[in-house]
């Protein structure tokens, strides 16, 4: 069950690298958040305490629904342009993704971490999510894809957290989620401001900005 969920997370990462529409990318990132919540639920089992249950509910709610909703709203406010517009083409991104997958798998295999059984995919998939997030941030023009890249990256870190530190204090986890919520909210507003000011959110053209 755990492995299946991890593989689905990994496949969504690959899907995000080739997707050419912004709204489909947002939906996939939302689906990844949802799966992440399910994975945490699967890890916690039936005897999860109140704190863990609350955290999982908040994860599913925020990553699966609130963030995609905020981003879709930001996208709608920009109007029209829904193409991803990559610097690195979708095909090349996928090839790069396969290389990154190999590296992550190797790292996950080599890295012996306490609390994670040997041969588990978790570390590899977490690394891959982080690297995919980085790739999305640097290889896409639209500012909204950079927010998505950040979310995917954070999903990877969260995945690390569920495996590595199942007993992290609830308080810390909640604070991280809240930070993330604020970050996405602020980024949504920034996106809106950028499009209001420049009629687009193409970061490529920021080079032309002068005082």
């Amino acid at each position: 069950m755990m492995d299946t969920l991890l593989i689905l997370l990994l496949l969504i990462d690959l899907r995000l690298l080739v997707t050419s529409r912004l709204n489909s990318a947002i939906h996939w990132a939302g689906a990844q958040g949802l799966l992440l919540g399910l994975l945490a639920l699967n890890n916690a089992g039936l005897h999860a305490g109140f704190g863990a249950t609350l955290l999982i509910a908040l994860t599913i709610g925020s990553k699966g629904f609130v963030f995609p909703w905020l981003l879709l709203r930001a996208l709608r406010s920009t109007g029209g342009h829904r193409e991803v517009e990559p610097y690195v083409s979708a095909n090349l991104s996928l090839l790069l993704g396969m290389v990154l997958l190999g590296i992550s798998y190797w790292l996950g295999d080599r890295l012996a971490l306490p609390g994670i059984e040997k041969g588990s995919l978790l570390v590899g998939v977490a690394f891959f999510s982080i690297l995919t997030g980085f790739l999305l941030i640097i290889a896409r023009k639209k500012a909204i894809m950079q927010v998505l890249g950040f979310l995917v990256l954070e999903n990877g870190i969260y995945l690390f957290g569920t495996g590595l530190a199942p007993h992290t204090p609830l308080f810390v986890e909640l604070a991280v989620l809240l930070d993330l919520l604020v970050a996405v909210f602020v980024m949504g507003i920034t996106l809106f401001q950028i499009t209001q000011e420049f009629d687009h959110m193409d970061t490529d053209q920021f080079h032309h900005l002068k005082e």
Partner: protein
Amino acid sequence: MNPGSPLHLLVALLAAPLLGGIIARIKAIAAGRHGAPLRQPYFDLMRLARKGEVRGKGTTILFVAGTLVTLAGALLAIALTPLGRFPALLSFPGDVIAALSVLGLGRFFTIVAAMDTGSSFEGLGASREAFFSALAEPATFIVFAALARATGTVSLSGLLAGLPPAMWHSQAPALFLAAAALLILLLAENSRIPFDDPTTHLELTMIHEVMVLDHSGPGLATVLYGAALKLWLFTSWLAALLVPKTASPWIGTLWTVGTILGVTVLVGITESTMARLRLLRVPQLLLSAAALAAVAFLLVL
């Protein structure tokens, strides 16, 4: 030699054109028509075989070689592939590479024959075919590498003789991904719909069909029969991957043949419900198949 070994070649030789008939019938039903009889591909082949052949004045021996080598390649690959629990007619360690190579050789000769006609139109199809197969062939190799790793053998007779059911418990995600990749490759290699439409003759979209435009009569029948055998080959690979090992070889073989027909129905449904991809998106889907296969390979590593 196992007495059941020649069975696959016999069954494939007889039943391969039937698959095309099934796909055509399903597409017809989905479109609300009654459709041609299932035996229609056989009638077509017989009609073409009776006709005379017209060849372009500029064509050489390569033009004829194109049809024959492709057919021979498909036949040899089928001889290397087991059906159900019966071992293949020919089998040696590493024959999976031989099977993929003869298919590649057949493709090479199809491309050369297309160029031999000197038609720029066929050259265009040849170029597309070469590009797409350069993406599809490594993906096929990765699928078989994953299977070889999972089963611990490097011969098609070992790889495809039915996986033990226990493996479907322990390695289910990897096997599922490999099967998905193989299904995409089946559609691509046999020029089925999301990649290519075997019924269209629109120059902008054709890939495989445009390369065989100049063939006629018995030559065209050879090409069509070779294509039917190749479709049978790929469906039998996918079926062998999906059907677990059974106690009795005969029941296993029946299951495999049933699965081959089932996969064909699935291809027909895909063709009825999907639109053709834009040509620019074709490499992306092929790369995705390679990515799925690579993930499957990592999982069994």
